[in-house]
């Protein structure tokens, strides 16, 4: 098999990852359409995968956008966006983790209160409030 794609103007990395990103964008779109994921997350996913596909397919585009934003190189723009995205993802998962922690805590609390026990009563202490 001939892996040389130079004559097509497409390098190997682009040949692999543009279709992958495009497929992931389509898959996210389909899942959102079927109601299998929240609309906001779905739209965000489609945008991210589409942007990744476009950025890989047209590398000069990121450089032009970077120049317009006052950043020298397209690679720097991608790095900044990746860092911002990483922070956003970390924050999202922290929030989800806190929500889950609160739910677990509430379950354990309810069980604990339901199963409360009392030690032996003293004479003066027999009545309950």
């Amino acid at each position, binding site marked *: 098999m001939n892996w040389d794609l130079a004559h097509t103007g497409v390098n190997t990395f682009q040949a692999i990852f543009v279709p992958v990103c495009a497929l992931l964008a389509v898959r996210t779109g389909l899942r959102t359409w079927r109601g299998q994921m929240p609309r906001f997350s779905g739209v965000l996913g489609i945008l991210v995968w589409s942007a990744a596909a476009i950025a890989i397919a047209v590398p000069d585009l990121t450089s032009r956008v970077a120049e317009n934003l006052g950043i020298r190189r397209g690679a720097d723009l991608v790095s900044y966006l990746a860092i911002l995205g990483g922070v956003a993802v970390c924050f999202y998962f922290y929030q989800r983790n806190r929500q889950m922690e609160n739910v677990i805590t509430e379950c354990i609390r309810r069980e*604990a209160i339901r199963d409360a026990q*009392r030690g032996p009563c003293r004479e003066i202490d027999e009545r*309950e*409030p």
Partner: protein
Amino acid sequence: MNEENLGLPSQSLPDGLWVVIVAYNEQLRIGAVLDDLLEVVKNVVAVDDGSCDDTAGEVLKRPVWLVRHAVNLGQGASLQTGISFALERHAEYIVTFDADGQHCTADIPMLLERLVAAGADFALGSRFLGKAQNIPWGRKLMLRMAVVFTRIFSGVALTDAHNGLRAMTRRGALHVHLTMNRMEHASQIIDQIARCGLKYVEAPVTIRYTADSLAKGQRTSAALRLGVKILLEKMIR
């Protein structure tokens, strides 16, 4: 509720007073603390926060309520459990008290007296208005930093922002919803007091530091992590 009974002597403390005490692996110390408490108050709920030792057995030898967490959740979660339990039992006043013997039962009547006299919802104990026996300098510094932190981020001026000895009315307790399970709860309570516009008063209390209590208490190095968690919680609220 007879509010005239709120002064000394302690025997005349209101029937609707509940003390919430949180214990984690306190088998060796909680008995003495509970015995002291029972000299002063009738209603005590001990929250065993998933202890590995026989803290629960020690608690159940005495006429107090025991509420057990199946796993260790933290002091904040345990306090909320104790407060919720006391509210279900129609508590009119709730006092939170540490299980490690740092607090003095003699401060409870005085806290309630201040609470009622000021018509406040919270009486917050302050070791810097009262006494902090054998307090290490590192702990003192951390507590001072917590005061500044609370002043900046909650807008509440206190002399001691992380004191576990506090009294609250039923109304005040109903406004408390602790979602921060561990030591951050002290800041969260103050934050909720400020947010709900509840009236508070500070009262001098005595805190006795011992080698045991220092070994189990908050580490000074944890202050930064605690601050970050509080800020994150404010962001996701």
